């Protein structure tokens, strides 16, 4: 296989793995990497195989660009799905990512839970609330079959604004934490 064929093969694989990027971005990346390979060959005189090995597999290089795009989109997004998807990708890279992903899942679950309680109070007011018995909180939330008759509800209608505020704050804090973690992780993910 000639040198030019090796270069073309590498660039074809690279291009085919840059799917989510725009055509203009893809072509610019391929042009730049092609120039890098040709300059390395001219300046170092090393074999094409060793030049391509130093560059790393085309699939891996494309994955770094794709991951950059995913994290860039996620770090501007407010969508829990987009953010959790990026956090899940981060989780494949190590303990920090796993921690971020699970914090995200718990954060969004708690946030949604608080909002659901506020909504539940509007729909099933007698079955939703926070119940106390003997000075201790025994139940909080929406219960289809009710709670112990000895317990008494303490928050009343105030559970609606409380649920809305706590739910919104938890969702916002989770979004901010994931976006910040993604930005930090991007600075630490280079392959040496």
């Amino acid at each position, binding site marked *: 296989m000639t040198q030019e064929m090796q270069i073309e093969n590498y660039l074809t694989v690279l291009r085919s793995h840059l799917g989510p990027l725009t055509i203009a971005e893809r072509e610019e990346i391929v042009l730049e990497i092609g120039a890098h390979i*040709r300059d390395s060959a001219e300046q170092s005189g090393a074999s094409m195989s060793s030049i391509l090995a130093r560059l790393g597999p085309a699939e891996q290089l494309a994955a*770094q660009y794709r991951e950059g795009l995913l994290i860039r989109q996620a770090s501007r997004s407010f969508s829990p799905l987009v953010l959790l998807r990026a956090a899940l990708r981060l989780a494949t890279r190590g303990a920090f990512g796993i921690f971020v992903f699970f914090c995200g899942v718990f954060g969004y679950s708690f946030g949604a839970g608080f909002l659901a309680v506020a909504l539940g109070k509007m729909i099933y007011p007698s079955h939703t609330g926070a119940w106390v018995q003997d000075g201790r909180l025994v139940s909080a939330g929406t219960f289809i079959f009710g709670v112990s008759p000895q317990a008494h509800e303490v928050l009343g209608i105030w559970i609606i604004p409380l649920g809305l505020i706590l739910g919104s704050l938890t969702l916002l804090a989770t979004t901010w934490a994931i976006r910040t973690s993604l930005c930090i992780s991007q600075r630490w993910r280079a392959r040496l």
Partner: protein
Amino acid sequence: MAKPRALYPDGDSPDRWEAQLRKGALEMAALASLWKGRLYGLEIIRFLENHSSLALAEGTIYPILNRLKLEGMLTSEWVEAEAGHPRKYYSLTEAGRQRLRLMAEAWFGFARGLSRLLEPVLEKQEIAK
């Protein structure tokens, strides 16, 4: 010689720690390589090899340059070269210079503080020798 595993009970090693440290410094190093003027990707890689101990997988630098450009830290332009193909040159923007200045200040402040902390460790080692 391999270091005894018992010294690193959590399974971590100084090599891995050093690799993490270098990864964290890579963005700063890429910006610093452009302080004196524009360079293209391969020149940045050679500059880092010659002026620092950052031996990196060559493909790593390009996604970082791409990200820094999207963040507005760098600009790029294609320049026709005698080599027969155009090269993509990168330059620092004013925002990139500002970020690099802040990073350099933070780096030296951090290094000075840690050096004071670590001086006794190395002094003890000298005495032991």
